[in-house]
Structures are given as C-alpha cells and as structure tokens.
C-alpha cells in the first residue's frame, strides 16, 4: 500500500516537472485516488454499521440507545473531557489518564522483570527446567483472579491494580524473551567470546539487540493484555479510572456514556498496540532485515 502511494506520488512529481512552467498542482488526481482507496472502505463500513444500529435500536422498546441518542445524551462528556469536580466526578480524559498511568507503571515493571526472567530462562537450561512449568501454570490464571490476593497483600486499590497489570503482561514478555535468547545464533556468541565481552556487555550488546524482535512481540501481546485487565480491575477497585467510570455509568443507567467510554477504550488500546509495534520497528530495523 505504501509503495503504491509512493509510486503514484513519484508519477505525480514527474508530471509536475514536465509541466514545470505552469507549476503543476501539488495534489494530483492519482494521489487523491490512492488515499481515497484506503480511507473510503472503512468509512463506508462504519457508516453502514451506524445506520444498521440506528435502525435496530430506534424502536421505543430497544434496550440500547441508537447512535443519535448516544451523542445527544452523552454530549456533555464528549464535549468536556477535561472537567474536574473533585472526587471521581471528572472528565473522561482524567479517567483515561489514570488508567493509562496504572498501565504504564505495571507494564514498565513487567518489561524489566519479564526481560530479565526471560533472559535467565533462555540462557540457563537449569532455570528453564525449574521455572518453565511454573510459568506455564501461572500464566493461565485469569487477571482478575489475582485481584483478591493482591488486595489482601497490599491492602490498597492502587498497588493492587498495578500488580494485576504486572502479573497479566509479564508472561508473554518472559516467554518471548526466552525464545529470543535461545535463538541467538552461535556465531554471535563466538564473536562475543573472541573479543571477551563480560556478561553485562554481552547482555546489552548482543542479547538484547539480537532478541529484540522476539521481545517486542512479547511486549505487544503484553500491552494488549494489560489494557484488557485494567478496565476489569478498575471496575472492582473503584477510584478514578476508565473501568470505574464504565461501572459507575452502568449503576446510574447512563448507557450512552458507557458506549462513549468503550469507543475511547478501543481507540486507546489500538494506539497502545501501534505504539509498541512502532517502537519495535524502530529498534529492530537492523535485526529484522538480516
């Protein structure tokens, strides 16, 4: 897709040069067509979906509001995401920011611990035999099942939510890092041995870059899982956060607000995934091209 648009813009540029005297248009018909080919299909599908929803939910007996009513009812929170009346009565921005902050903390801890543990498991046969069965069992535990235990341990909602993020996202990071470390070519190890890198230099200069494509696969899965988990965890622990916001809206029967919040949750989850994938692409551009 990218190459086709690049091609069409190149053709457009060539045509610009040909008609250099009369300064050709910057936006060419072909360029517009290439962009339109990518933008129009999702817009058509979205419009069709909204139309169907509108028709299905327009009956007075419908359980859910149609999109038109969602916008009119929830206009307050759509238009003012930044209000802050104290307590939990805040705009959507503050709820989302609180959730993202928890994810950032829990996920960062999971990245550090996951990469270190994954390296240990990938590097040492003994550690793999000892730890791998435990990991395989622990990783199947649903995120929310950890919440009561962490509440009992931390006696506070905030660290418990962060712990749930941590414990949810760490497994794919550990497992993918271990696979990446195990797949470091013997050649790289030989090079490191000949120039006598010490273990710390070996970790930073050979292991991390060599395993980076695998690590980022784990990070992408991990960040997705942690965003899934935080919404559920916040419904239970309360306080400021998008999960609590949704639960609170349900308790006050503000179905339209729930739908608006879900749209935001989906969009932010998408952005988080793209963000990690983008950083991964940037960091591993040399390795994956090999």
């Amino acid at each position, binding site marked *: 897709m990218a190459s086709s648009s690049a091609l069409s813009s190149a053709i457009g540029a060539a045509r610009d040069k040909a008609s250099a005297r009369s300064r050709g248009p910057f936006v060419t018909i072909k360029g517009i067509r290439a962009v339109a080919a990518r933008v129009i299909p999702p817009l058509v599908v979205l419009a069709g979906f909204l139309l169907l929803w509108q028709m299905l939910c327009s009956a007075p007996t419908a359980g859910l509001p149609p999109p038109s009513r969602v916008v009119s009812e929830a206009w307050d929170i759509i238009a003012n995401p930044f209000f802050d009346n104290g307590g939990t009565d805040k705009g959507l921005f503050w709820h989302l920011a609180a959730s993202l902050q928890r994810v950032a903390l829990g996920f960062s801890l999971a990245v550090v611990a996951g990469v270190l543990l994954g390296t240990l498991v990938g590097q040492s046969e003994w550690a793999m035999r000892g730890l791998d069965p435990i990991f395989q069992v622990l990783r199947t535990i649903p995120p929310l099942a950890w919440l009561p235990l962490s509440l009992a341990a931390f006696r506070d909602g905030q660290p418990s939510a962060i712990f749930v993020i941590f414990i949810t996202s760490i497994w794919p990071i550990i497992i993918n890092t271990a696979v990446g470390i195990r797949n470091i*070519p013997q*050649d*790289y190890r*030989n*090079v490191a*041995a*000949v*120039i*006598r*890198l010490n273990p710390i*230099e070996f970790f930073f*200069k*050979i292991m991390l*870059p*060599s395993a*980076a494509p695998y690590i980022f696969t784990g990070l992408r899965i991990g960040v997705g899982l942690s965003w899934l988990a935080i919404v559920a965890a916040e419904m239970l622990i309360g306080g400021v956060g998008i999960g609590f916001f949704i639960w609170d809206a349900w308790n006050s029967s503000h179905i339209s607000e729930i739908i608006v919040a879900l749209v935001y949750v989906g969009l932010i989850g998408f952005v988080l995934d793209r963000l990690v994938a983008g950083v991964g692409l940037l960091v*591993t551009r*040399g*390795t994956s*091209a*090999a």
Partner: protein
Amino acid sequence: MSHLTLSQVGISFTRAGKTSEVLREVDLTIAKGEFVSIIGHSGCGKSTVLNIVAGLLKASTGAVLLDGKEVNAPGPDRAVVFQNHSLLPWLTVRENVALAVDKVLAGKKSRTERAEWIEHNLALVNMMHAADKRPAEISGGMKQRVGIARALAMEPKVLLMDEPFGALDALTRAHLQDSIMEIQMRLKNTVIMITHDVDEAVLLSDRIVMMTNGPSATIGEILEVPLKRPRRRLELVEDAAYVHARAAVLEFLYARHAKPASLAA
C-alpha cells in the same frame, strides 16, 4: 622458533551415550609470520582444529601453546574470521569493527587513537565507502572484508580464518585472495586458514597441512610451498613449483585419501 604449537591434540564428542573421536594426535608447529592452510574433505574436522586453537572448543587430549602459554579459552590474540562473516546485523560496518576495537584495545589506545585505528583497518580492506552501511546492505564479499578488518583490528598474534571465502563466487574470491596476500605482505601476520580449495591453499600458503578423513582424523602430510612472494595468480599457472604443489595436494586428496563413496555428498 615455534610461535604456535599443537601438541597431541585430540577431541571426542559424546552424544546419546556414544563417544566418537573426531581428531587424534594432531601435531603442528607454526613459526611467527607463517601462513598455513589446513585442507581436507568436508567433515574431516579441519574446522574443529581451528576452533580448538581459537579456544571455542576444548581439546579432549593434548594442548595448544601460543608463545609457550597454554590456550584454553577464546581471546582476541587469536582473532577469528568466521565462515559466514558473523557481523552483527544491527550495527553498521564501522560499529562492528568498533565493538571489537573498543573492547580489545581499550587499555592500549586512547579514544581518538582507537577511532583512527578503526578507520585504518576499514581502509586496509577498502571498505571506507560503506562504513556507515549495515551488513544487510552490502554484498557477501564486502561482509567478509569487514570480518577480516574486525579480526585484524584486534592485533591478533594469530589470525584464524575458517573457510573465509567458501560462500563467495569465484571472481569475488580471487579478488579477496589477492587482498589477503597484499595485507599479509604488509603486516606479516601468523595465519591459519581452513580451506577446501586446492588452488587457494597453494596460492596463499607457506605450508599446506593435509588432513586424513574422519573419524579420528589427523594430519596426513605437510607440504611446503616454495614459491616466492609476491605471488601473482596469472604467472603461477605455468610455474613448475606451483604445478607440482597443486598436483601433490590433489594426489593426496583424491588418490590416497579419497573420500569414501558412502560419505560423499
């Protein structure tokens, strides 16, 4: 005077309870500045000899002595040019050489001296023009040049080359062989090169070590190559000494120690 000595070197591998002897009683003495090739059929353990000298494999019996000291771990005094270049794909050409130089010569040269030394070695193999490219962006021959620059930049006592040109096409290979001879004339390194190419062995070496077939491979014969340097491949084609040396190696490999048909690929 012996610079590098292999004394009664043997190695066995045990896999699934079965022990197989790959090398036995390898005895070899190499003088300073000598260029020695090890040639043999594939699977005879010639790369194993090199890996033992490099310290990447441990000999089961015997020992390797470099300047009278026993070798039992890898180190930059025995730099290796690997068969498949082994450049780190996430580093540029210059960074690949720098990784080795900055680690190995950290105590010997200042930061600016090291930077100059990196450039010097890249220039030695004519790779200055691609110093900022990544390995994926350069040809196989260029990658091998960088591998050679990285090894030379460590200022090794012995340069070990494991079929350095095996994966290259014939023209590129000839070009690199000429480069190696030219660099060797200047630096007078001690070199051990593994090869399966008879012409390459005769052209480059002062002595050719011919290995018998495995299992339990050992040195079958050592041939002196009495050719003056600089050697030029075109002039050598008709040279009596060259033709004789070439015939001797061919005779060893294909008449006396032909690869058993059951093992030939």
